[in-house]
């Protein structure tokens, strides 16, 4: 069906609906809209076709203009319903594409995180450096204002943080006093998410906490991302401790060999 054919069919169907309004006519309008969508006709084409059909009916001798306009409104609404289905489908496809893009960004950042962690593990004071990296990456990846990462197991207790100050790009570490003050503020459940850091044998090493999402509340995707980061962070911490002299892990390992 092209625009000319649609004009003729639409005009006849609309005339029938004006003469005998009812569900049969509305169903015909829906079918015409559906056909127009299927044939790739634009919404503008349909609007033009409708306008011409409406005008033809109004110009008829003895036309009841009020009845024609009423019939025209419901007929046009019905013919647009197929376009509404397509519009919603387009919106859904768009949202899916956005989600995929954000997943891709996340993977890229996780990959950077791995590379940075690997470099940091070779530097002096590397455990502190790795914790700071973890805090920074987790906060940026999920878009939170504050991230606190703490090691609380039988190794040396350590805490690092990353804090974004309002709208500026400045990020910094908070000193222990400020950190304790911010973290102990009452936070609504949706404004704070936590994941445990665990060793391969399931022992708890510490925790990773995010506070105050920059836009909106934390989502299920944020929780899943944090869980993923915490697994990678746990592996990085454990690997480093296994290779750092003087840590309980190294002592245990050396004692067993």
């Amino acid at each position: 069906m092209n625009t000319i054919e649609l004009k003729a069919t639409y005009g006849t169907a609309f005339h029938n609906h004006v003469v005998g309004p009812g569900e049969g006519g509305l169903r015909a309008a829906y079918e015409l809209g559906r056909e127009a969508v299927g044939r790739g006709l634009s919404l503008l084409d349909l609007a033009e076709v409708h306008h011409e059909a409406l005008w033809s009916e109004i110009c008829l001798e003895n036309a009841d203009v009020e009845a024609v306009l009423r019939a025209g409104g419901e007929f046009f609404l019905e013919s647009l319903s197929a376009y509404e289905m397509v519009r919603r489908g387009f919106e859904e496809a768009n949202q899916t594409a956005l989600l995929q893009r954000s997943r891709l960004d996340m993977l890229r950042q996780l990959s950077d995180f791995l590379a940075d962690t690997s470099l940091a593990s070779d530097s002096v004071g590397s455990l502190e450096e790795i914790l700071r990296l973890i805090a920074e990456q987790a906060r940026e990846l999920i878009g939170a204002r504050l991230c606190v990462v703490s090691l609380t197991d039988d190794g040396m207790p350590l805490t690092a943080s990353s804090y974004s100050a309002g709208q500026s790009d400045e990020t910094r570490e908070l000193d222990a006093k400020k950190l304790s003050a911010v973290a102990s503020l009452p936070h609504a459940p949706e404004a704070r998410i936590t994941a445990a850091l665990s060793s391969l044998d399931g022992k708890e090493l510490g925790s990773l906490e995010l506070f105050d999402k920059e836009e909106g509340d934390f989502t299920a995707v944020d929780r899943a991302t944090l869980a993923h980061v915490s697994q990678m962070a746990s592996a990085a911490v454990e690997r480093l401790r296994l290779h750092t002299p003087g840590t309980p892990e190294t002592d245990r390992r050396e004692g067993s060999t």
Partner: protein
Amino acid sequence: MRDEIVVSIRSDQDMVEARAKCRRLADDLGFSRTDATLIATAISEIARNILVHAGRGEISMRPLCDDGRYGMTVVARDSGPGIRDVARAVKSGFASRGGLGLGLPGARRLMDKFDVESEPGEGTTVTMTKWRAVDDLERLREKRRRRAGGASS
């Protein structure tokens, strides 16, 4: 409140009857004309599927009332060949190969809740629900009702 309405679907004319009855029920429940059109469109898509794939079936509609909210549930059943991959049939459409998002995915997008149960050779049941938007007057009444409830307790 009205009881369940059942329409047998065996021909195009039955589809028209199902649309007409859905529109009357939507009107009784206070749905806007736009929402009534969306429900009628979803019913048409499902009825078309019944006619094309199963040949016959039935569509039932009933009003819903939950905590002051009004809505409509539509259930379409057939004993046709069923759907092999329900998730794909419901999700495919605009983003899939050449699809325009009509049919099952289109109906799903027009309704608030949409569920398909189907097994190959066992037929298909589609259950879909649309809730009516609450208007300002209803919000005000609800606020008063809650306030009165709070004052009496």
